[in-house]
Structures are given as C-alpha cells and as structure tokens.
C-alpha cells in the first residue's frame, strides 16, 4: 500500500480531509458574507457585485467546482468516520454522563444536516430561482439582474426569513465546535493555545451569525425595502 493511500485510510488522514475542506467552506462563507453585506450599500452595489461575479466566467466555475468538491468530501468523510465511531462504540452506558463534551460538539451531525438542507433550499431560491421564478425577469435600470429586489422580496416572506435565521443559527452552532476543532485536528494547538482557539472560534462563529442575520432582520425592520 502506498504511503499516500495509507494516509487517506488512516483515522488522522481522514480527519485532516474533514478539517481542510471545513476550512475551505469557512473561506467561502467569509467571502459570501462580505459580498452579501454590499446590500447595505444600496441596490447598485449588490447588483454590480452580482454582475461582476457572473462576469468571472470560467473562474467562477472553477470556484464552484472546488466548493462542491469541498462540500462532498467534507460530508462523505464525516459519514465514514461516523460509521466507524458507531462500530467502535456499539453499547452505550446505562448512566449517561456528558463528560466535558459541549452541546455544539454533540450536535455536529444535526447542525450539519440542517445547514446542508438549508444550502439546497438557498440555492433553489436565489441561484436557480425556482421558489419565485418571476424574479428571473427582474432587471435594474442598468440592465443587470435585480438581486436587491430578489433578496428583499424573498426575505419579506416570514417563513423564508425564519428558516434562514434558524439555519444560520445552526451554522454558528456547527462552527462553535468546528473552528476550534479543526485547529486541534491540524495539530496547531497546544495546552495554552487551545482555550484561546475555542474562545476565538465561538466569537467568529457568532459573528457569522450576526452578519448573515443582519440582512433578513433589516428587511423585517424595513431598513432594506424595494
């Protein structure tokens, strides 16, 4: 068996793939959030941002394929590790003790599943535009796709906004364990650094929540309107 094959078949190698792909996905949500926040600069800014993104052409597709690969690997290897973990621990204790383990850590699969379900809905709503097909026709004065109007009208639906808030909440839960955990898996922590990574991870996770939640909340408060 080659050394590389050995590495990807080992528990640590597989965990490395989960953490590296997790890091790539965090990179994506950072860029995505910064792009989204341009909505606060007005319709012109966010419509221009969206148009520029689509003008990237091949580059956009390379990024998209990379992102899909990262998501697929992240989920596939997590499921593989989960299956092994269940086999390794077939019988639970009669007296259940959580022993240090945080709520975030214990709910990683649930939070991951909610986020995955949300991503599919989010793509259907704003990328494929299946939820409100008429929004495909909306153009602004400059002849660009009116992303601003699409977002504001999308989030005007309380069910859509509510599901969005719930999902970014679950994303923050996922990252509250995930960020610190990936640094531990990459071997970048020490006894002194680990509590700091854990604290910083939670701050970053809930900063993502505030950033993402600010858009539907602003629509609800009529700070953003058509």
């Amino acid at each position: 068996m080659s050394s590389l094959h050995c590495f990807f078949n080992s528990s640590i190698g597989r965990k490395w793939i989960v953490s590296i792909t997790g890091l790539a996905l965090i990179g994506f949500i950072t860029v995505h959030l910064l792009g989204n926040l341009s909505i606060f600069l007005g319709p012109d800014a966010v419509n221009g941002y969206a148009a520029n993104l689509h003008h990237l052409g091949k580059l956009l597709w390379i990024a998209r394929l990379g992102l899909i690969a990262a998501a697929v690997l992240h989920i596939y290897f997590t499921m593989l590790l989960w299956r092994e973990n269940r086999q390794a621990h077939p019988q639970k204790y009669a007296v259940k003790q959580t022993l240090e383990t945080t709520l975030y850590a214990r709910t990683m699969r649930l939070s991951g599943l909610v986020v995955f379900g949300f991503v599919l809905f989010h793509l259907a709503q704003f990328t494929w535009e299946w939820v409100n097909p008429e929004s495909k026709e909306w153009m602004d004065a400059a002849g660009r796709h009116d992303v601003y109007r699409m977002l504001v009208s999308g989030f005007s639906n309380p069910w859509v906004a509510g599901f969005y808030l719930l999902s970014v909440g679950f994303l923050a839960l996922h990252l509250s364990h995930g960020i610190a955990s990936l640094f531990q898996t990459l071997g970048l922590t020490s006894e002194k650094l680990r509590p700091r990574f854990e604290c910083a991870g939670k701050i970053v996770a809930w900063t993502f929540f505030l950033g993402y939640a600010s858009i539907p909340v602003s629509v609800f408060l009529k700070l953003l309107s058509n």
Partner: protein
Amino acid sequence: MNFHLRIWRQDHEKVKGFFEEIEAVNIPADASFLEMLDMVNNRLIEKQKVPVAFESDCREGICGTCSMVINGIPQGPGRGAACQVYMRSFCDGETITVEPYRAASFPIIKDLVTNRKAYDRIVQAGGFISEHTGGAPDASATLIGKHEADRAMDAAACIGCGACAAACPNSSAMLFVGAKVTHLALLPQGQPERKERALNMVRAMDEEGFGNCSNYYACEAVCPANISASVIATLNREYVAAACRSVAE
C-alpha cells in the same frame, strides 16, 4: 453506610449481560470503592453465590488496573483511578451503577473485567526506543531542556488504564496514543524511531478498531493521570509530518 448497587454481570463475551441489584450494607465511610466490592464479594461467597469479577492491583492509584465505570464515569468520580474513590463521597442509601468499560476494542472477559490487550499491541507497534545494552549511561550524558523534560514527563504519566477510550463517545484511543507518541517524540532517546513510531502506532490503533477523535475531550476529563488533550494535537502533527516524509521518500 448502606448502598444499593446495580452491578453488570456477564459470564463471558458471548453471552448477554444484565444488571444485578445487590445491597451493600454496613460499609465504613472510609472504605475505598474496591474494599466495598471486596466486602460485598465476601458476603456473596458466604451465601454460596458467585462473587463479582473486577480487576485491581496496586490499589494506590498508580497502575490503572481497576477498570470500571462508576455512575457513567470511567475510573469513577473525581481525579485518580477507581481505587482512589472512597465511599464517603457517596450519599448513604445512594444507588450506584457499576459497569465495565464499553468499547468494541475492549471485549468483556467477565462482569467488570475487560480485555485491554489492544493497548499493549499498540505499544508493541512503536511505543519503544532502541538503547545500548550494558551498564546504565551517566544520567547527565544526554542533556534535555527543562521545558521538554517537563512536557515529556507529563505525557509519560499515562498509566494505560483505558479510561480515555472508555469515556470517549467514539471509543477513540487518541489520548493514549498521543501520550505515548508525545512522550518519546520530545526526548532525544525517542528520535531514531520517531517517524516510524507515529505511523505504526496510528496504524495499530486503527486496526484495533478504536474510533476517531471528534475533539470532545471526554478523555481529558476522566484521565486519572491528568494527561492534557494537547497530546492529541501533537500526535496529529507528528503523524502528518511522518506521513509527508514517507510520501516524499
């Protein structure tokens, strides 16, 4: 003091186990948990019943032989091994549940006794150093920095009791393997086999069927030797560095 015990009884690995309700009466408050089990066993023997099988050796908290799970906590509540748990830390009349370690890699031999040879086999795969035979070298012959020596000694405190894998919801042995790899990687004597050690011990760990670390840190919470989960980060680092070098070679 009186206690209501729920103790796991299982004749061997192939049969189904069950909880037996046993009353422990007139137990002195300063008896250790194992002494309490001795008293219960003596009374069972007097009544011509089969005593509860459990492991113990040093009974002073340094060998890690006493592998049992008391009220869901491997090696019992508080720091230290199960033999360091005293009955005064329980309430009079309390129900105490005693189970064996639950991990596929630690099969049950009888009652509270599990087979922990998987840890021995992991150590045999790389938890050793090469040394000259003959007279012991001068203690000052090899210089080691204070900081490195302290960190290596902290990791070397691992007694291999198995509480880490027993406490882990995934039954991962990463704290144990991390302690062994960290201990030897920090010292000059551990350098010749450093790369092979990380690769071989992790391979042995995976082959034994232990789960994968999810960074829950339950292991760190129960470790009787106070091993920090930072040894797991060190193991991750050592393993990947070794794997990269073996790919490059």
